[in-house]
C-alpha cells in the first residue's frame, strides 16, 4: 500500500507538467494578450507598449516563454509576478483569507450535502415509487438543473425585493456584513455568517445533491435486492436493522469514493456562484486574472486547480482501499 501511495504521488509530477504545457499552449492560442486593452487607449504611446511587451517577455517565442516559466519554478520556486497587481502570483490568488474561505465554503457545503443527501437517498429507496419518492427526485433534479448563477440571483432578488430584508438591517451576498471581516470573532459575527452562508449552501449544495441522492437510492435498491438482505429479513431482524446495519453499510461505499472526486469540483465549480454571491474565494481572483489575461496568475491558478483535482483522485483511491477490504493495490 505504501509503495502504491508513493508511486501514485510521484505520477502527479509528469501529469502536472503535461497539464502545464497544455495550459500554456491554450493561453497562448487565445487571441490578444494582457496589453490588448492598452493598445486601444489613445493615451498610451507605441513606445510605452513596446517597453511593456519587452518587460513581460511577450515578444519571445512561445516555447522560450514556457521554458523560462518552468525554469524559474524548478530552480527558484518562483511562479512569477502578476502583470496586473505586481505581486507574486500566489499573493494575487490567495491574498487576504481567500484560501481559508474557499476551503471553508467547499468543506461546509460538502458536509451539508452529504448530511442531507444520504438520509434522503435512503428514504427515497425505502419508499420507492411512492409519491414522496417522486417529489424528492423532482426537487433534486430541479436543484441540479437550475444554473447556479441564476439560482443565486433569484435568491437574492427574493430576499431584497420580495422579503425586503434591508428593512431589518440585513444585507445580502458576501460571507458576512462588510464590517465584520476585519473584526474579531464574536457571537454576533457567527450569527451573521450563518445568515449570509445559507444561500451559499443552498445554491452550491443543491447542484450536487441530486446526483448523490440518486446514487444512494440506486445503490441501496441494488443492495436491498441481494440474497443476504433476504436472509437477514428471514432471520426476523427488524426492518430498521436490515436497512441501516446491513444494507446501507454496503451501499454507501461508492459515495465515499465520490467524496474525493467532489472536492476539486467544489473549489473550481463555485466560481460563478462566488461572483454573484460576492464570496472572497480563490475562484474570484482566478476569474479576474482570466478576464485580464494575466498569464502568470492564470497558469498558477490552473496548476492549483489541477493539483486539487489530482489530490482529490488520489484521496478517492485511498478511501476506496480503506473502506473496501476487498481492494488491494500492489
Amino acid at each position, binding site marked *: 500500500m505504501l509503495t502504491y501511495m508513493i508511486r501514485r504521488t510521484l505520477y502527479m509530477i509528469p501529469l502536472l507538467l503535461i497539464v502545464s504545457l497544455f495550459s500554456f499552449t491554450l493561453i497562448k492560442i487565445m487571441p*490578444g494578450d494582457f496589453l490588448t486593452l492598452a*493598445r486601444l487607449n489613445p493615451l498610451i504611446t507605441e513606445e510605452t507598449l513596446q517597453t511593456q511587451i519587452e*518587460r513581460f517577455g511577450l515578444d519571445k517565442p512561445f516555447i522560450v516563454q514556457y521554458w523560462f516559466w518552468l525554469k524559474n519554478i524548478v530552480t527558484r520556486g518562483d511562479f512569477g509576478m502578476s502583470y496586473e497587481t505586481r505581486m507574486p502570483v500566489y499573493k494575487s490568488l490567495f491574498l487576504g483569507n481567500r484560501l481559508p474561505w474557499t476551503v471553508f465554503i467547499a468543506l461546509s457545503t460538502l458536509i451539508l450535502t452529504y448530511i442531507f443527501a444520504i438520509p434522503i437517498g435512503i428514504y427515497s429507496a425505502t419508499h420507492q415509487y411512492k409519491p414522496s419518492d417522486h417529489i424528492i427526485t423532482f426537487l433534486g433534479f430541479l436543484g441540479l438543473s437550475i444554473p447556479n448563477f441564476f439560482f443565486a*440571483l433569484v435568491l437574492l432578488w427574493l430576499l431584497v425585493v420580495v422579503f425586503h430584508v434591508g428593512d431589518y438591517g440585513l444585507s445580502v451576498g458576501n460571507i458576512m456584513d462588510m464590517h465584520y471581516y476585519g473584526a474579531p470573532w464574536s457571537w454576533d459575527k457567527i450569527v451573521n455568517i450563518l445568515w449570509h452562508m445559507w444561500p451559499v449552501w443552498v445554491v452550491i449544495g443543491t447542484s450536487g445533491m441530486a446526483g448523490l441522492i440518486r446514487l444512494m437510492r440506486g445503490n441501496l435498491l441494488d443492495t436491498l435486492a441481494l440474497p443476504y438482505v433476504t436472509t437477514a429479513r428471514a432471520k426476523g431482524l427488524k426492518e430498521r436493522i436490515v436497512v441501516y446495519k446491513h444494507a446501507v453499510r454496503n451501499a454507501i461505499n461508492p459515495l465515499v469514493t465520490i467524496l474525493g472526486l467532489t472536492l476539486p469540483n467544489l473549489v473550481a465549480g463555485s466560481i460563478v456562484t462566488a461572483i454573484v454571491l460576492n464570496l472572497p474565494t480563490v475562484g474570484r481572483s482566478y476569474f479576474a486574472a482570466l478576464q485580464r489575461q494575466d498569464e502568470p496568475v492564470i497558469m498558477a491558478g490552473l496548476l492549483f486547480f489541477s493539483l486539487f483535482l489530482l489530490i482529490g483522485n488520489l484521496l478517492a483511491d485511498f478511501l476506496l482501499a480503506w473502506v473496501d477490504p476487498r481492494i488491494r493495490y500492489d
Partner: protein
Amino acid sequence: MRNALVLASLLLLGSLVAFGQGYAEMPADAKIIPIGEAGTLYETMELGVQGGTLTIANIEDPRGWNDQIAKETSTTYFTNRMLRGLVTLDHLSGAIVPELAKSWDISEDGLTITFHLRQGLKWSDGTDFTSADVLFTFNDLVLNEDIDTDSRDGLVLPDGSYPVFSAPDDYTVVVEMSVVFRPVLTQLSTNINPKHALEQYVAKLNPDVTPGTFNESWTLDMDLADLVGMGPWMVVDYQPNVSVTMERNPYYYAYDSAGTQLPYYDTHVSAIVANQNVSMLKFRNGEVDTYGVRPEDIPILLPEGPAKGFEVMITDLPLYGTTWFCVNQDIGLAEGTLNAKREVYRNVKFREALAHLIDKQTMITNVLNGLGAPQWSPISMPSPFYAGRDYYGGPVTETNAAWFEYDPAKAAGILDDLGVVDADGDGWRDLPNGEALAIEINTNDNTVRTGYCLIYQDDLRNVGLNATFQVVDFNTLVGRLLGSSGDIIQLGLTGGDEPNSGRNVYGSCSGLHAYRYSACDDPTEVDLRIDELYSLGTSTFDLDEAFAYYAEAQDLIARDLGYIYMVNRTFQYAYYEYVGNAQFSSPTSTPGGANGLLSELCFDKRL
C-alpha cells in the same frame, strides 16, 4: 446595521497610528470651496456637517495602491482620492483650476510655467509638503525610464523632448519647455507622490534596490498604515473581493465657505460587487448609497424610488468617449486582393452613404432605452473643446455639427451614382466592376454593441447591401481592427476633456488610425491638414485660438468618415435622498463606479 457600521468605523479610527492630528488651524493657503456662494458653480450646494459613512459599490478589486503604476479606474478611484496634482480639472466646468499649486504664471514666449505652491500643507502623516515632492514625482518617477507609468506619454513635447522641472525654493516649481505645448497643463494634473515615503523604492535615489523595485512597491499586500497622501481620504482597510475602507485625511487642505474641513464624510467605503445586477440589488436593499444606473434599470428603479427614498437622476449629458463603425479603407491591401472593394471603401461618397444608413434614433430608443445622445464629433461632448459649442467652454448649440442624418433614400441614391448597383439581378448591390459586394460587420459579445450592429445590418440590407453581422471575441476584434484585417468593425474609444490624445488616433501615422494605416505613407490632403491642426492646437495657450483649430479638425474628421460616429450613452445615476449634495455630479468623476458624485462635498443629511 448602520450603528454597527459607525461602531466599526470608530474601531478602525482607533487603530490608526499613521495619521497625524490634523492642522491646528486652517492653513493660510487652504483651498476654499465656495459652497452656497452666489455667482459660483457651487451656488446651489448646501453646507454640510462632518461625520457618517458614504458607501458605494465598485465592480472590480483595485490592483494596487501605487498611483504611477495604476492604470484602470478600479485602482485610480482610490489613488485619486489619496493624492492630488498641481492643478486639476474642475468637475463642474471642465476648466483647469489650482490644486496643490495656488497659482501659476506662463512666460511671454509660452516656454516657461512657474507654479506657486500652497504653503503650510502637510502629508497625511504630518510631513511638510514642498517642491521636493513635485520634483520627485516628475524627475524621479514620471520621467524615469525604469518606472512603468503612462503619465510620461502625455509629457512628450512635439519635438520628442520632455519638459525640465526645477525648484528655486520650497514653494516654487519651474517647468521649462523647448516648444510651446498647451496640453502640458492638463498633464500637470498628474498626482504628486510623497518623496519621503517612496524614494526608498527608486533605484536612482537608493542604490540598494534594483531598478524595477518601485513598480512593485505599494502593492495590495502592503501595510496600509504606510500609505501617505494629500487627498481627502486615505485607504485604511482592504478586504480582497469584499471592500475598501477609506478614512478622512486630517491634513486635507480643502475647506467649505463656512470653514469646515472637507470631506464631510468621516468614512468612505467601497463595496466590491462583481456583478452589476447584484450591485443594483444591494442599492435597493439600502446597503450602498449610490448606484450607476444602466438604461435597463430605469423601469425598475423609477417607480421604486419614492417608497424607498432614493432619487434617480436622468441627465442628457453624454459620457466621455466615442462609439463608431470603422470602415477598413485598407481592406485587402496587404494581400493585394479586394482591389475593387477597397477602391469603393476609399471613396468618401460611399462612406457618406454608409453614414446615412445609421439610424441613431432607433439605436437610442431600442438599445439604450432612450438614454443616449447622437454623436458626430471625435471629441466628447463634455469637453470645452467640443465643436458643437460656439466658443471654448461655451454652451452646446450644435450649430456647427456635421450630421449625416438617417436617410436610406439618399444613401441609395449615392450608391446608385457610384455604380454600386445590382448588376447580376440577385437582389444585392455589386461593386462597379460587377464583382459581388459582401460586407461583414463585427463586434464583440456585448448586448449594447450587438444591438447597434443588428439595427445597422438591417438598414444596410434594406438598401440592398449584402451585409452580415458576426460576433467575435473581444481580443480577436481588437486584433482585426489594429491588424487592418477587419471589414466594418463596431467599437469605441475612451475620451476626455483634452483633445490632444486624439493625435494618437487621427494623426496619420498613429497606432489607432485603424481605418487607414496606409495614410502614414500615403496621406491625403485631409490627413495632412488634420496633422497640422493637431500640432497647431497644442502650440498656443490661447484657448480660443486652440478651440478654432480643434473645431476645424473635428469638422474634417467627421466629414472624412474614417470612424463613423454613432450614439453615446448619457449619464444616469441614483442616490438615497439622505446623501446631501448628491444631486451635483459630473461624468468627469464617473469612471470606475464613482457614480459621478462629487464625493468630498457630499454629506449625511441625517446627522
